[in-house]
């Protein structure tokens, strides 16, 4: 499987998946930390992929999403955004709605 196919599978087989640096318990970057903290606060179960463990995924996800930075949040196969967007949506309540399937 090519890296793009692997990423596609990760994104399609997990309802909520966060591509980040480090893990939710041990984030390795402030932006990734913020995004994973917000998801924890929403109380949703989410999968996470530590891009620092795999350089192909780290570069591949940027191509896949056409987005140059990490973290990247996917909900039900749709790219939702990076840490700024996740935070804005959390503050406005949109993120919680989207996670609940209402948006």
């Amino acid at each position, binding site marked *: 499987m090519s890296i793009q196919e692997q990423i596609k599978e990760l994104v399609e087989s997990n309802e909520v998946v966060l591509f980040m640096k480090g893990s939710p318990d041990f984030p390795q970057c402030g932006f990734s930390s913020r995004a994973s903290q917000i998801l924890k606060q929403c109380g949703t179960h989410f999968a996470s992929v530590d891009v620092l463990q795999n350089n192909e995924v780290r570069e591949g996800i940027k191509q896949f999403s056409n987005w140059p930075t990490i973290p990247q949040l996917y909900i039900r196969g749709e790219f939702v*955004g990076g840490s700024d*967007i996740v935070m804005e949506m959390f503050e406005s309540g949109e993120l919680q709605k989207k996670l609940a399937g209402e948006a």
Partner: protein
Amino acid sequence: MVTPQDIKGWIEENLAGSRVEIDGDGHHFEALIVCPGFSGKNRIQRHQMVYGALGDRMKSEIHALSMKTLTPEEQASLEG
């Protein structure tokens, strides 16, 4: 090292009608970008427009750029 002024220049040159307020230490930057062209676009599209204006620099020179993207109307209603 990249300065906030550099980034401001690159965005304003390449994103028509945009006005940028930006701060940063050479590694992490925070920018407010106001542009009429953002109207009708969702956040991802807006950020993509800014990334487009910065081009390859996002891959090499800019480590982290935090963005707030607003139309002039949105900014006015925040300040109003």
